[in-house]
């Protein structure tokens, strides 16, 4: 057992080392794709945890990404805030909003919570369309001078994805994670044992939104454009659900596998966004029928890996 853990540890260190060094020599395509992969890992890790272990399925997560993107764009272009500070700001604004939303949203459970998150996301979308400060329906386009280099973006995205993975790992093992999983399994029993459901769910929700807000910065730098339609689009949730279900529902490694495969799929079907989503939908249905645990879940079953994460 000890040997096995040690070899996994060495493996991870080698991979990290490679990820740090390779981009210097690698071509543009590799770096761009890598940014996307890290980006999606960062988004999906926490969604995966919340959905599978805390029974909080959010259909409106895209609002935090969008808000993060808007914040970064506005902060950098109108207030001259440097990029790294903008990232932090994006996270803070998102989590601030999440903190406000906690009160109405987290009183609901299950499907009601899911619907409510969707509702709030749609509501924000409409509000942003009518709000001049954020550019209304036209949105915001990043101007040339404010772009950061792809390399910098690579390392930022890499950091965010590592933070995500570590967050989920440590939350899972911590007292908070224990409480959250109890809530996810049987909230009534958890309440009777004295677990403050609202408090723990809020912590989780705010943390997740903080990370997603930060990823919004990566998004705006990568695509250079945000508007209410694409920023709050349901396609985000579709992609997240696809990655999570494909890679391994509830598993730490799941979103990693899922993100890699997803970005590969995007490359294959480049330019046919509609087709990509249809294919995702079909694959999601097929997975839910036959492989609800996803790829890593299936592997774990085959190799009798006991760890639930």
């Amino acid at each position, binding site marked *: 057992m000890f040997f096995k853990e040690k070899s996994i540890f060495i493996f991870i260190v080698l991979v990290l080392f490679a990820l740090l060094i390779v981009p210097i020599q690698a071509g543009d395509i590799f770096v761009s794709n890598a940014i996307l992969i890290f980006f999606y890992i960062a988004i999906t890790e926490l969604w995966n945890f919340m959905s599978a272990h805390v029974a909080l399925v959010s259909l409106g997560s895209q609002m935090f990404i969008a808000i993060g993107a808007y914040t970064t764009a506005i902060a950098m272009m109108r207030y001259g805030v440097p990029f790294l500070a903008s990232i932090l700001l994006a996270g803070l604004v998102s989590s601030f909003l999440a903190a406000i939303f906690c009160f109405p949203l987290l009183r609901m459970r299950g499907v009601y919570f899911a619907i409510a998150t969707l509702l709030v996301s*749609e509501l924000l979308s409409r509000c942003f369309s009518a709000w001049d400060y954020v550019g209304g329906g036209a949105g915001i386009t990043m101007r040339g001078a404010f772009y950061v280099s792809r390399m910098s973006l690579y390392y930022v995205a890499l950091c965010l994805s590592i933070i995500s993975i570590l967050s989920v790992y440590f939350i899972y093992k911590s007292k908070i994670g224990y409480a959250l999983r109890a809530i996810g399994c049987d909230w009534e029993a958890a309440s009777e044992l004295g677990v403050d459901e609202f408090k723990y769910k809020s912590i989780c929700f705010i943390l997740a939104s903080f990370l997603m807000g930060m990823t919004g910065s990566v998004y705006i730098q990568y695509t250079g454009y945000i508007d209410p339609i694409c920023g709050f689009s349901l396609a985000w949730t579709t992609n997240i659900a696809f990655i999570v279900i494909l890679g391994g529902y509830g598993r730490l490694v799941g979103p990693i596998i899922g993100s890699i495969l997803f970005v590969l799929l995007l490359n294959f079907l480049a330019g046919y966004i509609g087709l990509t989503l249809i294919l995702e939908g079909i694959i*999601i249905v097929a997975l839910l029928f036959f492989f609800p645990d996803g790829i890593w879940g299936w592997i774990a079953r085959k190799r009798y890996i006991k760890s639930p994460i």
Partner: protein
Amino acid sequence: MMDLSFINLILHGIFLGGIFACLGYGVFMWKGVMGIINAAHGDFAVLASYICFLLLEFYGVDPLLALPLVIILMFTLGFVIQKYMINRFLPGNITRILLITFALSVITQNSLQILFTVNERSLYVSYYRRSITLGYLNIPLVYLLSFTIAIITFIILYLFLTRTLLGKAMRAIPKDIEAAKMLGINPANIYNYSMGISVALAGIAGVILGLLYQFDPFTGVSYMVISLGVVIIGGLGSIKGTIVGGIATGLAYVLGGYFLGPLFQYVVCYLLILIALIIKPTGLFGGG
């Protein structure tokens, strides 16, 4: 002297409410009878709109004539989906069903986008745009037609649920599924018909909304939100509550647009639904 345009506005809200209620009836069938969430409900409504659009543009078929065909097609779609894709995960596993219907929603939206592009469409029949004068008011014929269909749908649905044995079984099962099984009733069979009816109802709503408003492949999301709102406000106790919910939503939509401008139509409407959801998710008027 009463402000005629305000009366017009209220009437508009009520008419729209009756039509919104139509979206809610379908929700009642899957949430009230089966306890599941069909994330593709709004998209099925839009699908029906597009089918009518196709028939109108290429074959010149009047949407109201195409309605019976649409109803049959939608019913079959719902029946088949329930039988082969949803029943196997019942009872329990509501999240998985949510995700499956979500995937269906995505597939529908994007297929429509590929087939019809994102351009907005509508079911435009010039004859219907003529106005009928009732006293002081001018009401476009299309409003009266849509509203009439919505009312007829309600009446037929109400009679179905209260007078037919299948309808009674649909009302009985959510109250005590084991008792139903002890009577030899097979819930899965009933669920097939429930879902068929639900999607057919969504289809009707889609057609009559398509006559009034423009739609695009992604309008389904708005329809879904409104459907849920109607049921949340009106409660799942009975479909009578759904009418109340529909009218409340319709008025919010119309009044919101009037006082705050067209961009805020949805905002006021959604806010109302959100507030209702927060206060009492099982419905303000009914035993959920």
